[in-house]
């Protein structure tokens, strides 16, 4: 059951920041900071302003969990999936943005996977049901992911009217905000999203130390 909730964005003026930097703050309906929220620019930007591909991003597999759980990358970025556990994992995705499979491996890391298409890719492990990870593939480099305190900073934004959106696996609706950025002063973009319960495969207690 889904209810349409309006996410409200508050734009607070702050003279302490530069014009191209944007402080981001994401809270939920209870006023709690939301970690792992991806805030990105929706407005289509000229190609020269798009960032180039940087070095590969790493999504670790530690203690039968993907780390980090949520990550954001620019389209065309390569991602490495090293396995730091002493058991094998089988990483896969059936997401339309990037469908791939890294069949059972442990020590020898497979080749990095390049995510060309913007979109959301959900990763899973065929061995461990509960292992999931989200990769937000943005079409440009104007995005950021909130930390534990629900805040983040987006730098070097062009001074123009920009539309921002926030995405989170548990959010009910995508929140969109449009803001005219000017060079004279920094500002803080605050999102209030409505979180919902998202079902995840259950991770139970291991009966033996190494097997589960």
């Amino acid at each position, binding site marked *: *059951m889904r209810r349409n909730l309006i996410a409200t964005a508050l734009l607070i003026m702050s003279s302490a920041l530069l014009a191209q930097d944007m402080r981001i703050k994401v809270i939920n309906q209870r006023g709690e900071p939301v970690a792992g929220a991806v805030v990105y620019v929706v407005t289509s930007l000229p190609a020269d302003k798009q960032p180039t591909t940087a070095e590969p991003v790493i999504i670790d597999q530690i203690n039968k969990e993907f780390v980090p759980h949520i990550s954001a990358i620019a389209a065309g970025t390569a991602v490495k999936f090293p396995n730091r556990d002493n058991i094998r994992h089988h990483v896969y995705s*059936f997401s339309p943005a990037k469908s791939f499979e890294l069949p059972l491996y442990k020590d020898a890391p497979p080749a990095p996977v390049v995510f060309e298409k913007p979109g959301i890719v959900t*990763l899973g492990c065929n061995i461990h*049901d509960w292992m*999931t990870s989200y990769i937000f593939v943005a079409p440009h480099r104007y995005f950021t992911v909130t930390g534990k305190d629900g805040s983040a900073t987006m730098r070097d934004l062009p001074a123009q009217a920009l539309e921002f959106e926030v995405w989170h696996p548990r959010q009910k609706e995508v929140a969109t905000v449009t803001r005219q950025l000017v060079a004279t002063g920094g500002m803080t973009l605050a999102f209030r999203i409505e979180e919902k319960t998202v*079902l*995840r*495969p259950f991770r139970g207690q291991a009966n033996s130390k190494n097997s589960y």
Partner: protein
Amino acid sequence: MFSQHFWQFRSFARRLAVWMAVLLLLLLTGIYFAIENTLERNARSTLNQALEVTAATLTARLSDQRGVLLDKLRLLSADFAFKQVFADGDRDTLRSALENHRNRVHANVMQLIDLDGKVLVSTDPRDQENQKLPDHWLLTRASEHEFGEAAGFVFVHQELVQYVVSPFFTPQHSAWVVMGIRLDAAFIETLRTQTHSEVTVFWQNTERVRIAGRLPENPQEEAQLLTDGDITLGDARLPTLGGRHYLHMPVLLESQPQGKATAVLLRSFDEAMTPFYRLRNVLLALCCGSLLLAVLASSVLARRVTNPVRRLGESAQALAKGEYLPVQGVNQQDELGTLATQFNHMLHGLQERDAVRGLLGKVVSTAVAEELLKSPPILGGELRTITVMFTDIRNFTRLSEQFPATTVIEFLNAYLSEMSSCIDAECGVVDKYIGDAIMALFGAPLPNHKHTENAVRAALAMQQVLAALQQTFTTRGWPALHTGIGIHTGEAVVGNMGSAQRLNYTAIGDTVNLASRLEGLCKYYGWPVLVSDAVVQATPQFAYLELDRVRVQGRAQPVGVFAALTPQQQTMLHADAQTQDFEQAVQAWRRGDIEQVPSLLSAIHEGSPLATVAALYRVRCQVFTEQGMPDHWQGVYDYDSK
């Protein structure tokens, strides 16, 4: 309901029988209901326990089934190949995979439903794919669950299906997988076999649909199953015959706005009560038997009481009529037997007493006999003023010689009976018969202050009776009887005299002698009733004629001799002028003026009632004239002989 007369028995036996029967009936009814109550409660308790066990078994089985189904479902939702097919969107392969899994786990249906509740794939061709499920409460329930799982009963395609829902991850939550198994007759039959309880399952929304179960056979009775309390299937008016009585327990399987699934568990009450019904027949037989025995026993017992009582009653009734009928055939050793024996003893005693009394009454006078019976006779007497009467038949000795002895006895008895009756009528007592003579007492043994009057009245009555008796005697050829009666009153000793072995109640003394002498004088004076001057003084109401003053033999005191007059004699004398002459003659005689006496008596002729006494005086005067007057004449004539 009963009239008052119903309880008023005329027969003791019937009363006893009815009371025994009523009491026994009350007792047996009490026992019957106590047993019924106990057994019924016991049966109810047992049945309720059995129903609870069935309910627990049903719940456990459904719960187990749900758990197993969920486990089987989870296996599929974690299947990598299935995820891959789902990601590819290959619906036919998905359906095939579901079908394969359904067969593998022996489920009835499997579905894949998207997050909006639309059926993506179903193994049941009746399901509309790409259509939203009309009832997606189970999905709502699952989405509210911590792990996205849910289970419940859904009525679909006229079947009640136990569904389980589990989320399908790819690896994010992409859809719901659903697996269902029908709750059908086979499932219920297994439960029935295991628990021996009948189970009927319904689905109810706007209408009621029976999913499974044999009862009730008549669909009109189904509504009863969903009510509280006991139910009767079949003919409710005769629960033990046509109808079957059940205890039931509804178990709610599912309750949703879309409808309610209920399993109703039934246990036959009649079956549980079968031992009681058998016992009831035994009790009924026992009741009838013991009632019959009680009535018989009470009847026998009552007869043991009523028979002797009836016999006693008959004897008592006979006794009232004066018959002595001993109680027969009561040989019991109990109180009634003792009573009968004592009654017979009493009867014997009464019979003896009556015999003695009858005999005594004949031998002695009735009053004496009564007195004797009242108190034991004691030898001895008392001095009392009484009146004594003597009667005698004139010339009886000569008469008795003229008639045969039997005739003499016959007319003597007739005479004595009549005379005695006159004495009895005036409260006199015949003291004894001395040949033709009677000695009678007045004022003893019973005190009677009018004894003199009674005696005189009796004597006068005897004259009347004798006159009447004369006619009878004449017709029978018997002689005419003439009597003499002497009466005197005075003190006499009365009491029982004789020896200790044989005694007589009688009177003795001068009074008795004088009465006897007066009776003896009757023949000289020609008057039938002579009384003493003491009698005349005591009874002035009667008419007397003074006849003489005499001194009888053995008695120094002179006594006035008077004739007691009947009314006829009185009239006769009154009309006769000679009476005065006679009285003057008597006066002259007393003075010793004997020369005048014959002239005074000269007018009295033969045939006058005074003729005899006149003749007597003439003779005396002649003798005195010839022999000279006695010395110291005081007008009292001495009788030397008796």
